[in-house]
């Protein structure tokens, strides 16, 4: 069964400014999403904000540089992911449409298989 990674991109500022009630409400919706799609879900996590990110470039130089910050700074930042199994893209998109993302959206990427 093909796997897809659903990447959640949301405005971090909106998350930071959300009230405790609002945050709890969204997290509860993620819980409900997880219940609804329990059979398809293979994993997933929320991430700390991109201010906590560390980037490493230049693997092939032998002396990679380590810098503070995300790989690419964007207003809507990668804030979490779900790994799902789906029969095809339409099925994956149907699940992805259901991911609660009040401050942004999601990107769906097929997982590449090497054999």
């Amino acid at each position, binding site marked *: 069964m*093909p796997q*897809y990674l659903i990447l959640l991109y949301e405005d971090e500022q909106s998350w930071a400014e959300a009230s405790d009630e609002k945050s709890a409400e969204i997290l509860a919706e993620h819980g409900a999403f997880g219940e609804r799609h329990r059979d398809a879900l293979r994993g997933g996590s929320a991430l700390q904000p991109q201010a906590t990110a560390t980037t490493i470039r230049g693997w092939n130089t032998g002396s990679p540089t380590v810098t503070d910050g995300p790989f690419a700074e964007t207003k809507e930042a990668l804030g979490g992911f779900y790994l799902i199994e*789906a*029969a*095809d*893209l*339409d099925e*994956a*998109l149907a699940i992805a449409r259901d991911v609660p993302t009040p401050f942004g959206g999601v990107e769906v990427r*097929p997982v*590449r298989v090497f*054999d």
Partner: protein
Amino acid sequence: MPPDPADAAVVAAVADAHRHEWAFVLAATVRVTRDLDLAEECVQDAYAQALRTWVERGVPASPGAWLTTVARRRAVDVLRRDATLRRALPLLLLDEQPGAEPERPDDHIPDDRLRLVFTCCHPALAETSQVALTLRLLCGLTTVEVARAFLVSESTMAARITRAKHKIAAAGIAYRVPPGEELPARVDAVLTVIHLVFTTGHTAPAGADLMRRDLVERALDLARMLAALLPDDPGVLGLLALILLTDARRETRLGADGGLQLLADQDRRQWDQAAIREGAELVRRALRHRPPGRFALMAAIAAVHSVAPTWDDTDWHEVVGLYDVLVQIWPSPVVALNRAVAVGFEQGPEAGLAALEPLTAEPQLAGYGYLAAARADFLRRLGRNVEARHAYEEALLLTENRAEQAFLAGRLSEIAEPNRT
């Protein structure tokens, strides 16, 4: 030596099969290969073989079935030969278990055209890619021909088609007809693509010719094919009707001097009455569904024009009423513009100008030449020549179609001199 008439008949038969059977043959072959590129190669081989074999043995009773059988046999051969090589490729997903079918390519040829249609027009592909794939895979156009239709270089178009095919396989766009609940939205995406092919052909975005007949005819073929496959879909009926009714005026859109002829000035006796009758009947069928779709309403508007014996007999009240409904279900600035123009013909240029006014602030219409052209026309009718000249000049800057440019330049020259009487 003159060409053998029998050979000429075979060439014509192959050309006819290319135009009418390509989608069927390819769709049935894709099911065997589960790979678009390989299927295309096998189908091309089958057409080449048809040219040779049909000269010797005559044109078969069912050219489509013959071509499909040859293409599928070839596919099975290639798959056997290159099994290890091809194992690494991502395969198209089928919604049923791939069973022993590829082993027996000769019996039971399924009609998989709808699968191919929905795969080409999947919303996860960019619209430009959907159009390119549709022309290439459903109409059998070469990459060069598709590139020419959309005024991009061959390499750009080749890259676009390759990228789209790769996404279909790698992202898992399934080779299937979507289930009932998804069907309306997916059919609408297909209609949008066919309509885009038609409008691109009806008024070419640039160049010396007003129309690109080849694209208009491809759009008509596609709409007819879809109407045969989905005979009860009101959107499909509406789109086919719209194309027939609009294209019925093809012979009169250019005057004897090669200049653009407006609807008002066209010789209506030259309109294609058979196309109008067919289109009008389709509109009636499409409008029985509630609520009516956007293509059915646009076709209904075209039908009002088609049945008016002269421009002065046009039922503008009916046209405006239909636009009022259309703008409700499809709130597009272009629809609002067309509605405003109809208001101008119903209630006079002053009212038309007033209806256009709010649209001048619409960002989507900022580069849209027909807005300036419509304003120019109403201003000219009101005798406000200075403003009209500015509007014509603006419209001229916004079209690259030479027939349209010539028309606008002609209007501009009519009011070029300040009125001295």
